[in-house]
Every structure is written in C-alpha cells, then in structure tokens.
C-alpha cells in the first residue's frame, strides 16, 4: 500500500486539489493585505496610493472598534453559554424514553434548517415587534408595557436569536454523545451510591467533555462572523450597540466606501480570530486528544 511509488502517486493525485484550495485562500488573503495598505475609496476611483499603516491606525483608534470588539466577544460568549448549557439540558431531556420521541427529536433540530436571514426576520417582526409581535401581545395581555427588544436590548436580543438557531446543533451533538455513554457505567455508579446529580457530574459530564469541546470550537468559528442577523434586525444600532467586528468591516467598506479601511479591519479580525482559536485550543483542546 504505502510503497514509495504509491506515495509519490498519491501526492501527485492530490496536488491539484491542494493547489486549488491554497490559491482559493492565498489570493483573497493577499489582496486583502494589499488593499489594507492602500488609500482605496470607491468614491475616488483611480486615486489609490500606498499609505502604510494609516488604515490600521484609523481602524484601531475608531471608538466603534472597541465597542465592536466587546460586542463580538459578548455575542460569541453569550451564545456559547446559552447553547452549551441549554443544549446539555435538552439532550438530557430528549435522552429519556417518552412517547413520540422520534418526532420531537426531528422538531428540535428544525430551527437549524431555517436560514439566518429568515429566522432573524421572523423574530424581529413576529415576536419582538412591540406592536405586532407575540411578546408585545403577551405583555398587553398581562397588563404590562410592551418591551421593544431590538432598541432597548439590541445585543441581548441578537444573542437570543442566534442562540435559538444554534441550540439545535448543540443539542444534537450532545444528545448523540449522551447516547454513546455505556449504560452499564451509569448502573455501576448507581450501585456505587451516586445520586442523579452525582451521576451527571461524575459520569455524564466527563463523557460529554469532548462533545462540548467540539460544539464550542465549531460554534466559535461561525459565531465570530455573525452578520445576517444583525443586518436584518438592528443594522448594528442603536449607535454601535449591536455592531460586531464583521458588521463594522461591512460598514467601513460598503457604507463608507472605504475599501482600504475595511481591509485593514479584515486583517485585524483574522488576527483576533486566531488569538481566540489559540486561546480555545490551549484551554480545551486537550480534551480532543487522549
């Protein structure tokens, strides 16, 4: 199988795919890097010139940058917290035998199939709208003042919407992990005198550790680049209250036509994402080997 000849052939065969993927990554990355050092405004075509670190300086000293950075971290952290805890609880619930289990499990997965733009619009108009939304009606019915979620607590509302979308993913992964737990281990723990809470803490949670790691890593990658939900609900506002880095870059390049500044923001976002990734890997990546 692994003779020298076959290995050489294998390298030759996969090289087109590798080259394609490499080009796919390198071209946009180097163009972004290149643009980030240019004064490149779409309103002044043909006036591009090299400006050195100016774009970076402007982007980093923009007060919106720190707001966006905080919002990004809050958004990622908040959604992770809700989906991991909620997902674990839901998985525990769905793991119990009950009538109609199959249907319920499929229904739980359903939100994941709704595209982000649509689900955000549904939440915005049908639930959170203070006049027409269900929450507004519920508040009326209870005799309370309707709460305008998206203008009074924009970031929290977006965290809620995004959590709703990602909860099924976390639940699904954690449920499969839970089902792979050897029942005899739980029975042994029961014989050993562990109560329900102790069985969860000592047996189930360690068993779920790897699945939780996977959920956190995958979700972080996607949550760092949340965009559609913000665009269709709050447009990053009020002010910068719900602007994350992705949205800030979008504003810079396409609303202010400053491609150079947007590119600089993009490069900064890449660096930050890598810092988060290294941090995550350090913290929980150990769970993946062993």
């Amino acid at each position, binding site marked *: 199988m692994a003779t020298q000849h076959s290995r050489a052939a294998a390298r030759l065969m996969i090289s087109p795919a590798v080259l394609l993927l490499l080009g796919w990554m390198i071209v946009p990355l180097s163009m972004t890097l290149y643009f980030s050092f240019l004064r490149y405004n779409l309103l002044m075509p043909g006036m591009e010139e090299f400006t050195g670190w100016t774009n970076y300086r402007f982007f980093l000293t923009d007060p919106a940058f720190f707001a966006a950075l905080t919002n990004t971290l809050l958004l990622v952290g908040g959604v992770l917290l809700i989906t991991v805890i909620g997902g674990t609880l839901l998985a525990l619930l769905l793991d119990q035998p009950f009538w109609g289990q199959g249907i319920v499990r499929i229904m739980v997965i359903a939100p994941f199939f709704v595209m982000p733009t649509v689900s955000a619009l549904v939440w915005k108009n049908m639930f959170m709208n203070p006049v027409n939304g269900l929450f507004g009606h519920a508040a009326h019915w209870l005799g309370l003042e309707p709460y305008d979620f998206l203008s009074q607590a924009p970031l929290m509302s977006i965290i809620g919407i995004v959590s709703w979308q990602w909860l099924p993913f976390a639940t699904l992964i954690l449920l499969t992990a839970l089902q792979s737990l*050897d029942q*005899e*281990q739980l*029975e*042994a*723990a*029961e*014989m*050993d*005198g*562990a109560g329900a809470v*102790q069985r969860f803490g*000592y*047996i189930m949670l*360690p*068993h779920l*550790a790897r699945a939780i790691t996977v959920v956190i890593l995958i979700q972080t990658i996607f949550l760092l680049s949340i965009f559609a939900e913000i665009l269709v609900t709050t447009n990053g506002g009020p002010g910068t209250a719900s602007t994350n880095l992705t949205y800030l870059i979008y504003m810079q390049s396409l609303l202010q036509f400053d491609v150079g500044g947007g590119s600089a923001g993009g490069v900064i976002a890449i660096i930050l994402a890598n810092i988060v990734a290294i941090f995550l890997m350090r913290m929980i990546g150990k769970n993946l080997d062993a």
Partner: protein
Amino acid sequence: MGRITLDQVTKSFGEVNVIPPLDLTIEDGEFVVFVGPSGCGKSTLLRLIAGLEDVSSGQIRIDGADATDMPPARRGLAMVFQSYALYPHMSVRKNIAFPMKMAGVPEDEQKRRIDSAAKALNLTDYLDRRPGQLSGGQRQRVAIGRAIVREPQAFLFDEPLSNLDAALRVNMRLEIMELHKSLATTMIYVTHDQVEAMTMADKIVVLRAGNIEQVGSPLELYREPRNEFVASFIGSPKMNLIRGEVARTYGAQSIGIRPEHIAVSTDEGLWHGTVGVAEHLGSDTFVHVHGHGMGSEPLTVRVDGELPVRHGDRIFLTPDTEKLHRFDAQGLRL
C-alpha cells in the same frame, strides 16, 4: 450477613413475562451460580436482586429486611459488570475510591482500603493509570476491587469473564474462587458457561425461560439431573440422549448416558456403530459414533488417549447401567 431470599418474584417487560413466580434462597457465604442458555432470564434475575430493575410482583429480602423497593445503593450489594463498567476518565485509584467517596468514607480509611484491595488484586503498580491503559484482566480486577472496597453483603457478578481470552479466564476463575474463600461473602455469579458453573459454585441454579429447572450442588446436578434439559446442559461434552427402541428396552421415553460412562470395544458390546470424527485432546479422545438403530445424532464417547480406531471402523459400545439416566415423555427423571 448476606442471606438473600426471593419470594414469588416475577418480572415482565410489557406483555412479555420474563420471570414467572420464582422462589429462591441464597444462604450467607454461599457461592451461587445462575446458569442457563442466553435469554433464560439469568441476568434479569441478577438485576432484580441488584435493584437495577423493579420486580413486577413478589418480594426480595436481604438479611430478612424487605429490599423490594430499596434503591440499589442501599441494598449493600456490589456488582461486577460484563463490560466492567469502569469510569474511563478516572484513574484506577479514583475508580476504586468512587463508591467510598459516594458513601462519605473518611480519606485515610479510603486509602487503607484501596491499598489493601490493590495488594490483594495485584494492582498496586497500576493505581495511577486510566482504565484505557490496562489489559482486559487488569480491568476485570479493578472492577472487582471497586466492589471489594465497599465491603458489601454480597457480590453480584454478571458474566464477568466472558470478555477475556481462554487462558486468562481460567486464571480469573481461580482468583474469584480464592477471593470467595478469603472473604467468605455471599457471591452470586451469572454465566452461560457450564464449566464455570461446575468449577466455581457451591450451589448451581439452572434456569430456562425464567424457570428454575434445578437447584443443587455441581455434583448433584451431574449425578441426578432432574430432567433432560439439566442433563444435557450440565457436563462437557454433553450427555448423549437416546430415544426410540433402545430407550424403550430400558422402560423410558428417552435415556441419557454421559460420554465418560460408555465402555468401548472393537469386538463385543451391547450397541454397535460406525466411528465418525475423533477429537484428540491428548489426555482424552472424544469419538463420535453413529450408532446403528439409535437415531441420526452421533453418540459422543470419551476414551483414554489412543484408541486404535479409524474413521468408518465398526465399534461396540456398552453403557454403564448404573450411570444411565431414564426420562419420561415429559423429559422428567424416572
């Protein structure tokens, strides 16, 4: 300290009645083996005693106290599972300490018991390893260690040796018997292997479809099986059962004769037949003989070492009438 009584215990899963009303008493300090073919309800019975399943009706008493509705942890029983059910993310030490930690045993007492169990089970060098780094036999010992440190009223073993290779199985069998002798605690052991049952038990309970077919010491079961099922289940190779004309001459519907109770000769005997396959084990040879007028099933005959017969040869057999078992139409012993 570990007398377990089952009184009219039944168990059904939905419509399916797995255990019909069943009475059984296990005396303190006894080594009892539940044996039977797979699906006979022996594991279910063990799980009922452990409290991992609820009885449908009837009563389980441990040391005279009604344990029917007691949660498993409070019954004072320790169980060793077929898959060992070790906690993979804990070291051997923590695995063994787990039941004591749950029971709130003081630290130094925990340490003392772990050390003595580890010493008894040859685990001292492995205490800081994870179960994944141990061999099958070592894992088995950890599971037993986890049971010992609880100092239970009785040990329950659910086919503990079925995942081990043959040589290790014999060793572990001896170790468990040794353990029983030194602890003198009640042990209930479930297996489908009649060799394990014969070698280990003080008392064997033979089960079929949830019914107890016979209870007795290994030799009682060997000498006086109550029916055809027990007769063919206990003993290896299994007893030859002969029906028809030959059986009627003994005034029975069927007769049973063990391979070791048939004398072989090349020139004279009561029955004759043709030699089939011979299995040479060195000390013994098991010869399969196609008896004339004795049905299509070949008879298995044990002979010493070398017997100068070849496949297809004519051979004469004489059963030892003293050790012949006679059964009626219901398969019961006459």
